[in-house]
């Protein structure tokens, strides 16, 4: 279901990853149910095509099955690993298809009005927690200056490189890099404050 985060979710995710590494198919199914929606949403943003996005989701979770034993706790939480895999696989697929396109969030959609909601039928608590987390992240995104938010979204949701963004917006590459860095730094502060102030 909807991705969750926070200490409890992180510990649960880690248990699932370890179980998957040990060949536990049920754990794999649970991990899929927990994050397939988030992975699919990311892949859809990058690829803009549902069938291609589903292929990318398959690639991502197959890679999870094969490489869960290599998951490095020092690199962060499983959600970070999964979403990095999702972005990378989706962009690889887009490059392979030679279908360069820019998929940018509309200014007013708060990250996703065009997308289909994942039905909430398996884990209402996880959904509720995920929804709260998502709301905090959306709030943190909304707190960015519009030009910062735009480039962060183009990079992390649209799968456009810094150079692609500079070309698309007709602005110097250095300006784009600085804007993204500043945006991420501000996101980090906002998210840290949000999680310290009211973790579910």
């Amino acid at each position, binding site marked *: 279901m909807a991705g969750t985060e926070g200490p409890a979710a992180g510990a649960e995710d880690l248990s699932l990853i370890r179980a998957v590494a040990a060949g536990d198919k049920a754990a794999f199914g649970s991990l899929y149910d927990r994050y397939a929606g988030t992975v699919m949403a990311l892949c859809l943003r990058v690829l803009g095509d549902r069938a291609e996005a*589903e292929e990318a989701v398959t690639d991502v979770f197959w890679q999870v099955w094969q490489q869960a034993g290599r998951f490095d706790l020092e*690199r962060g939480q499983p959600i970070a690993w999964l979403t990095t895999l999702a972005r990378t696989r989706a962009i690889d697929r887009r490059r392979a298809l030679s279908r360069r396109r820019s998929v940018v969030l509309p200014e007013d959609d708060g990250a996703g009005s065009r997308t289909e909601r994942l039905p909430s039928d398996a884990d209402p608590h996880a959904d509720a927690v995920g929804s709260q987390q998502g709301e905090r992240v959306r709030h943190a995104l909304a707190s960015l200056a519009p030009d910062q938010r735009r480039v962060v979204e183009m990079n992390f949701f649209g799968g456009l*490189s810094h150079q692609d963004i500079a070309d698309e917006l007709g602005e110097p590459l250095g300006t784009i890099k600085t804007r993204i*860095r500043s945006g991420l730094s501000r996101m980090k502060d906002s998210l840290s404050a949000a999680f310290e102030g009211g973790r579910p």
Partner: protein
Amino acid sequence: MTCEQLRDVIVETAAGTAGAAEARALTAHLAAGCPVCAGRLAEAEAIGGQLALAIPPVAPSTAVRERLMERITADPRVVVPFPSERTRPSAPRSPWLPAAVAAGLAAALTGVAVYVPLARDRDALRAEMGRLDRDLRTAADTVRVLRSPAVQVVSLGGGEPQPGARGRIFWDRARGEWRFYAAELRPPGAGRTYELWLIDDRNRKIPAGTFDVDAHGEGELHVRLPDSGTIVAAAVTDEPVGGVPQPTGTIQLVGSFQ
């Protein structure tokens, strides 16, 4: 490429948009054991993970799950787990125990605990062994510095904004090497970072690098400054991201070598 040059490559890697050459450069840099860039990558990926939660999830068709479950059921993978975890123990540790030493000790104590798949996954084992080898080499290097009779240890106390923050410097005078560790520092504000300054006997401030802190408020820097005989103090200030040639921010940590 330097750590500074790799900052944007790290962001692009977390976003999945790094080019092949950039990715290779970062991989080589990380393989050399740079803890600063490893920390920055973990942080960028963590933010990337959080960002993904801003998008309402989209359900793939049920056929995707069914195909995957069929595929893993048919997968002949044989798992040979070792008796202990391969990840670092989560027991509390001293904030002064260098991360590399902890990683090295963990690897030694757990008996090179790796996950061994079949021969087709030999590359995974090689990668894991490479990682452990790097950890151990870094740990050995750190232990060498700590055991050196030429090492001077200096404690830094928190400045007015953060009286509870602490820092410690291991200064190998003979080699001109400085290992700085900070603990209980709050994350710097938006667009800010921490910068270490070495101060000589003429009150000149020498910039020694910028660093960020992790969720535990811990950060570190490894600095080589061969001609450092006249250094009498060290301080940490908060500065704009990227650092500045001379301090402009507030002193967060300070300590004297005299």
